[in-house]
């Protein structure tokens, strides 16, 4: 799975997520990636999220919207992502990762799997990471 979130100079956000799904999946199986609220969400009143990981688990907790719910409740984006990923792990034993940007420009890349390649560009600088 791949994904992106962005905040533009007008203060608007967007997300995009795309995937081939699970290797050896049943024909017709669909995970979270095309499902708004799970594979991603964007609302300029809050921020944007793109998700990756075990699709069925992400669908069960509506991962992207859950993270933005926590942001709405006043959590910082990193804490919101950790809280939601932790909930997914404890509730349905699902692992995954997310990238989040708030409408104020705060951002985070978080995951519970071993690895998730990510990169962020802001202020002319590029940050990136791979392992926890």
């Amino acid at each position, binding site marked *: 799975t*791949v994904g992106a979130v962005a905040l*533009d*100079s007008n203060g608007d956000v967007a997300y995009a997520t*795309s995937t*081939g799904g699970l290797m050896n999946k049943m024909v017709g199986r669909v995970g979270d990636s095309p499902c708004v609220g799970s594979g991603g969400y964007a609302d300029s009143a809050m921020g944007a999220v793109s998700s990756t990981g075990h699709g069925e688990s992400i669908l069960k907790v509506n991962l992207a919207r859950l993270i933005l719910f926590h942001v709405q409740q006043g959590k910082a984006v990193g804490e919101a992502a950790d809280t939601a990923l932790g909930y997914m792990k404890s509730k349905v034993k699902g692992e995954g*990762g997310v*990238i989040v940007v708030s409408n104020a420009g705060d*951002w985070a890349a978080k995951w519970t799997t071993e690895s*998730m*390649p990510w990169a962020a560009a802001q202020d002319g600088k590029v940050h990136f990471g791979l392992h926890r």
Partner: protein
Amino acid sequence: MNPVVLVHGGASSEIPQDLEERLRQGVVRAATAGYKVLKEGGRALDAVEAAVTILEDDPEFNAGHGAVLNAEGTVEMDASIMDGRDLSSGAVCAARCIANPIQLARLVMEKTPHCLLTSHGAAKFACAMGVPVIPGEQLITERNRQDLEKEKQKTDAETPSPQKNQG
């Protein structure tokens, strides 16, 4: 507002060491392309589409060219996009034989009153929109073909565990 773009290349349980640098280069290239769109005054929606298109075209990632294979050895892809300005969104699922499902998802958002088109309907819509149809084989990498074979042999020998395969 100070523009920012983030990209990811998929959560994974393990990444072979020889792949790490190529993944780093891929996500940096995608983030840089998205950021360029923003710096030139483009919208967040254009930036995320540009970034994901680059990752779909990169065979190292599980999307577009390089997507993993289903049980029949073919590629079925899912994608979605959303504009935070007005919550408009578009998505496709079980899409086949197109290079960039994210661009088709955006067309669903902008050219239809719907949010999600599946399989045969997505293919008909792509055709109507003039999206080029490519041979499904073109999306398949030799590594993914081999990985499917290994996975099939493994799942024949043991109970399949979806948690090992994060997607």
